[in-house]
């Protein structure tokens, strides 16, 4: 049943998928061209994985635009299955686009990324971690508020970004925001470093699975209450 | 009896559809129902009447003027109410009225305000927040507020409940009270027309089937139901037949002749509703019944 649901979203959203897929790929290449030599593998992975999750989001969000949730929910499926299928779709599609991002990183003539590091297991695990975390964060919003929720979230994140930048520039690095941003950067750096250590990876994988299930349960609860 | 609307030999064809030689006229002070299956050409006729498209042949005279030359004047004196009013949805009711007002020289704001209160239209509310019924009432209020002499309604009541529909019919009847104004009312809900229409124009496959008074339709057309053995005898009168295992039902445009022909026999002859006419004549058109098939108009297209 999950396969049918994933197929439903992919097939009905195939045009949007193709268009955005192409745009993202173009953007990856453009980012590498702009960044030039000082784009680090870690940085590239983090950025492209954050971007990749928005491809499945644009496919899933279409349902809200056409009020087609009533159609999907009228099919012989439970809300839980719909939510699970969309988590699978998001992680799957996000990962596919990451593969594209890495390929772009490898093939692009103007890419300065170290090939060995780009395809190292650490990098792939980092990408997967970013995708899983982002899916766990975004999808509850998507299921509760639909496409408006995502747009609101994006706007809020961008505003936070701008505020953070201005504050750090005006007040120097001491501000809470500055510390917040720095802490986030450090966390990512240490995560990236530890991903080489198998024990850490095992623990981290368990954490990711737990986070996904928690987010999935939350989304199922939210989607169950949604007035279609 | 001067005619507020005269349509003569109207031709219009485009992708896979053709309006051929449609003629009918609507005298002042009456309501004309325009009926016909989906895709028969009703909306095309209305678009031609409003100058939204140009006819390939024939002529339309409205309010005594030829619309091909003075379309703007004619349109300023026609009120148009259509199924999905494509207003600017984000505007408020009052805001929209003020915009529409600029297009009509005889716009009367007091009339609009009176109608808006009568229809309980919230002036401050956004159009997109109005219910379907409210939007139709808004469209009607706008059409009635610029002293229009001809009201043209294209499927205004689809999806609306009988209470609302009856209220609309009462308003249309009131609109023609002064004997000077007329209504052209295109709808699929023919039971509404049976209540208020004075004339019925029936269009099928781009051609006129008939355009005559409601009473003449009632008197001349009828349903004949009989045993299958009587079918052949009556073919001459029948214009559309549907057979079931236990009897046939046919529509005829000469119900008196059918009564005489089958007098004393076990036959039911009764009045045909407009819906019956449309249903059984579509059977004729589908060639399922009589040899002559095509619903050729019964001679007198226009009724003086």
């Amino acid at each position, binding site marked *: 049943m999950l396969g049918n649901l994933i197929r439903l979203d992919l097939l009905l959203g195939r045009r949007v998928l193709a268009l955005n897929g192409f745009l993202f790929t173009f953007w990856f290449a453009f980012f590498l061209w702009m960044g030039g030599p000082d784009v680090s593998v870690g940085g590239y992975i983090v950025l492209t994985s954050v971007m990749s999750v928005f491809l499945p989001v644009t496919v899933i969000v279409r349902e809200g635009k056409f009020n087609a949730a009533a159609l999907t929910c009228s099919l012989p499926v439970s809300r839980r299955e719909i939510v699970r299928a969309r988590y699978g779709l998001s992680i799957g599609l996000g990962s596919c686009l990451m593969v594209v991002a890495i390929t772009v990183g490898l093939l692009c003539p103007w890419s300065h990324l170290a090939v060995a590091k780009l395809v190292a297991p650490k990098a792939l695990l980092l990408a997967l971690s970013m995708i899983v975390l982002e899916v766990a964060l975004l999808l509850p919003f998507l299921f509760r508020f639909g496409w408006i929720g995502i747009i609101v979230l994006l706007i809020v994140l961008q505003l936070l970004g701008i505020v953070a930048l201005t504050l750090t520039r005006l007040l120097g690095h001491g501000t809470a925001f500055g510390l917040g941003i720095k802490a986030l950067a450090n966390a990512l750096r240490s995560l990236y470093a530890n991903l080489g250590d198998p024990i850490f990876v095992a623990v981290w994988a368990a954490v990711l699975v737990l986070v996904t299930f928690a987010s999935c349960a939350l989304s199922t609860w939210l989607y169950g209450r949604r007035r279609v | 009896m001067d005619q507020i609307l005269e349509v003569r030999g109207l031709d219009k064809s485009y992708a896979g559809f053709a309006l051929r030689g449609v003629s009918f006229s609507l005298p002042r002070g009456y309501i004309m129902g325009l009926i016909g299956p989906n895709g028969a050409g009703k909306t095309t006729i209305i678009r031609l009447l409003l100058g939204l498209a140009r006819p390939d042949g024939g002529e339309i005279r409205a309010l005594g003027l030829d619309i091909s030359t003075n379309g703007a004047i004619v349109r300023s004196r026609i009120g148009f109410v259509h199924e999905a009013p494509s207003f600017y949805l984000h505007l408020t009711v009052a805001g929209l009225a003020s915009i529409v007002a600029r297009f009509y020289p005889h716009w009367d704001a007091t009339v609009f305000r009176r109608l808006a209160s009568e229809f309980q239209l919230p002036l401050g509310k956004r159009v997109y927040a109005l219910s379907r019924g409210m939007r139709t009432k808004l469209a009607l209020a706008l059409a009635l507020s610029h002293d229009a002499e001809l009201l043209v309604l294209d499927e205004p009541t689809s999806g609306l409940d009988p209470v609302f529909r009856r209220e609309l019919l009462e308003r249309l009847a009131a609109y023609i009270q002064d004997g000077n104004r007329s209504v052209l009312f295109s709808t699929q809900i023919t039971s509404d027309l049976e209540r208020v229409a004075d004339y019925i124009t029936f269009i099928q496959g781009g051609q006129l089937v008939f355009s005559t008074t409601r009473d003449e339709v009632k008197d001349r057309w009828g349903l004949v139901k009989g045993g299958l053995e009587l079918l052949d005898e009556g073919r001459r009168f029948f214009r559309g037949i549907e057979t079931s295992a*236990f009897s046939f039902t046919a529509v005829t445009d000469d119900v008196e002749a059918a009564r005489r022909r089958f007098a004393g026999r*076990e036959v039911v002859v009764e009045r045909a509703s407009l819906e019956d006419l449309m249903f059984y004549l579509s059977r004729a058109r589908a060639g399922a019944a009589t040899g002559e098939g095509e619903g050729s108009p019964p001679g007198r297209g226009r009724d003086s």
Partner: protein
Amino acid sequence: MKILIANSSPDPIYEQIARQVKSQIISGDLPEGTSLPSIRRLAQELQISVITTKRAYEELEKEGFIDSVGGKGTFVAAQNADFLREKRMKVVEERLAQAVDEARTLGIGCDQLSEMLRLLCGEES
């Protein structure tokens, strides 16, 4: 079997069906044992509701004109001869009663009516 529904007539549709089936059984058009269409087939053919045809058949069964054999369908019941004769006599009585009512409205007296009847009987013999 022939059934004609008059939407404009005051009597309910199930009565019209029952009456027409009864008259065809009495007149012999529907001999004993003929199988009748199911209530759903009749409803589909006449484009009316299933409950209407069901009521018609229930009334016919109550009056012994038809009986429905579970699973195999509905058939015209065996009409014993005098039961049938009695039914047809009732039909004649009804028609005469109508004639009398009609005559009374025209002010025709009983003897004038019987004179007309003798005349009609006379013509046939």
